[in-house]
């Protein structure tokens, strides 16, 4: 039980966020599209469990819907990274040291060399702020991560004898990649995916904070923080609540990722016995 402590706490936290996000489709305490200026800046009370913001919107409702935004942006960004990065990594691994490998890996290095946050800001600032561009900007920087991770793991798998056996069975490299390499990468990809997912949430918060994430009226935790910024001195709950939401989500995902890595990695599992 003790060894799964991270996994349990992490999954629990992540589930809370996921449930809050999903539940927000069905019901939220107050309509967040309806501004109510006279009710603004209430501290947490019985009507509004987490208080209201500067437009009189219910913060609990905002947090719930904001979770949706955060999760969606981060998830899609991870999707882009995996969807493009993994095939590239697998392809590079099949041609180790060859031209294709060089091109893919050098491009990776190049993307890594760009200051990610600056480029994300550049992309969203140049092509318009919004959730979609934020997803693309974050997603682009996920590509080399997944490419590198999957190439590294695939390379060591290609040395395994079961891959040789498959080659002796006349299977093409593509087929081996799909049939043998990919399934053996799932653990790794799940773990890396979780990590990138939490980084994505932080990145989305950062972009939204500088106003380049999801656009109003769609609530987003980062923008809630930005909106709250000037009011912290007299309404600290405006910043504390979305900040805590971000921290708990990222913490939950990280713990879950660590827990998954420990639980899925047979090497670590063995050493624990």
């Amino acid at each position, binding site marked *: 039980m003790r060894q799964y402590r991270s996994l349990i706490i992490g999954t629990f936290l992540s589930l809370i966020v996921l449930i809050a996000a999903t539940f927000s489709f069905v019901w939220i305490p107050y309509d967040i599209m309806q501004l109510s*200026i006279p009710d603004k800046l209430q501290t947490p009370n019985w009507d509004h469990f987490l208080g209201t913001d500067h*437009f009189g919107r219910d913060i609990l409702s905002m947090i719930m819907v904001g979770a949706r935004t955060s999760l969606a942006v981060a998830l899609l960004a991870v999707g882009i990274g995996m969807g493009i990065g993994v095939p590239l990594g697998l392809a590079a691994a099949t041609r180790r040291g060859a031209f294709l490998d060089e091109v893919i890996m050098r491009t990776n290095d190049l993307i890594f060399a760009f200051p990610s946050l600056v480029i994300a800001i550049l992309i969203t*600032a140049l092509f*318009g*702020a919004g959730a979609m561009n934020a997803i693309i900007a974050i997603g682009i920087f996920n590509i080399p991560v997944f490419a590198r991770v999957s190439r590294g793991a695939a390379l060591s798998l290609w040395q395994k004898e079961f891959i040789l056996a498959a080659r002796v069975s006349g299977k093409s490299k593509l087929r081996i990649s799909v049939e043998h390499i990919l399934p053996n990468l799932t653990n790794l990809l799940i773990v890396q995916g979780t990590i990138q997912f939490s980084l994505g949430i932080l990145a989305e918060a950062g972009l939204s904070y500088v106003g380049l994430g999801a*656009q*109003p009226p769609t609530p987003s935790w980062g923008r809630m923080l930005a909106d709250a910024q*000037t009011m912290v*001195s*007299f309404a600290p709950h405006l910043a504390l609540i979305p900040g805590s939401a971000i921290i708990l989500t990222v913490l939950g995902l990280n713990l879950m990722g660590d827990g998954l890595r420990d639980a899925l990695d047979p090497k670590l599992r063995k050493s624990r016995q």
Partner: protein
Amino acid sequence: MIKSKKYIAATAIALTAVASTSFAASSDITVAMQLEPPHLDPTSAAAGAIDSVLYSNVFEGLTRFASDGAIIAGLAKSWDISAEGTEYTFHLRAGVQFHDGTGMDAEDVKFSLDRARSEDSTNAQKALFSGITDVAVVDSTTVKVTLDKPNGSFLFNMAWGDAVIVAPESIEGIKNNPVGTGAFKFQNWVQGDRIELARNDNYWGSAPALESATFKFISDPTAAFAAVMAQDVDVFTGFPAPENLPQFEADARFQVLEGSTEGETILSTNNKMPPLDNVKVRKAIAHAIDRQAIIDGAMFGYGTPIGTHFAPHHPDYVDLTGNSQHDPELAKKLLAQAGFPNGFETTLKLPPPSYARRGGEIIASQLRAVGIRAKISNLEWAQWLEQVFRGKDYGLSIVSHTEPMDIGIYARPEYYFQYDNPEFQALMTDLSATTDTAMRSEMLKKAQNIISEDYVNGYLFELAFTTVADAKVQGLWKNSPTQATDLTGVSWLD
């Protein structure tokens, strides 16, 4: 031991923090503002930040704005206007020197005006000079300016920051080393941080009380709040976060000045884009909007409601807010009459200032209540200029028109709200040819009525100009007839 060392270090830090602020008093001042000038040439950029630092401090024009908005003598101590109103003869002050020691004379005036109106001029307000047909040097202190037709606002135009007098000797380096005739000399610019000015001991006018001044640029509202609270700065002009003002008001260390500006904040409407080309639709929008909620929500109560495009503090202002009372039911009815019982969809493109961003959210919510779905997109200024202002690719926008007396823009059908009303255009033509004050007043009132009743734009509020200052600073401009931070009359109270 370790603990006590830590304590000493902390105390040392605290002490220096206190020391550095208490030194600041007496003869120098640190003024903070949100935007940093891109460069220091007021005659070739639109950035108001340039004027905020340099206007009347470093650069002066023939005429100038007083703190109440009146036009008073500047480098020209007096002027004569010919009977037809097309010839202006300016009598310059004698013995005025630029900061580099060269004299300011009629040649400099001619150079400045000709440069601004020339073919390759990069003056952002070139229209101010468009009526000038000739600038002639009569003698070293006399300049004669000829206009193609009478222009009632010519003296007003010459007071703008874009019309300040510069010298050909120093024009080359003006963008980084501005040389003017004002009471302060430019000292140093640490880009991204501050500009330092020092008193000009050869100033022609009365010497300012301050020996030196530092302008600091703090774009982030939180940082602005922190800087003022920590007394890192003495004055913050145009404080960006109205929500923090009550805290300063409650604090005896500070004074808050709420002044008026020339900034009419409007819901800019694309008058050519269906269904916004329908006056009923525009009227419906006007009634859907609750101005007070916007002022409370976006500006935390700072701002004066307006019902037309005119500054409320102006003597000719007419209160037309009654034309667009908050009445969602009426708005819905009007929409139905216009053929949109279920509302319609449009865009709401917002530039960066918080009045626009916050106001936009509130307006979108208010419009949604009557069925109009306004899709918000937040733009940077560059994008806003590209898409909205030049591209006219927008339905609605929110922007504050800070140029003084700019009702004339409604006479320009190519202007971004694309309002094309020949009656109004004729009125404006007449106005510029009229110099009689009473008649001008009548005409201005009529103009205000026309645009209000045509619901050209949604008229929201006049931007308040809020300055937070150390309680001991006196002589600051309360109002802001133009973007300027005139320090000539500022001093510390002992």
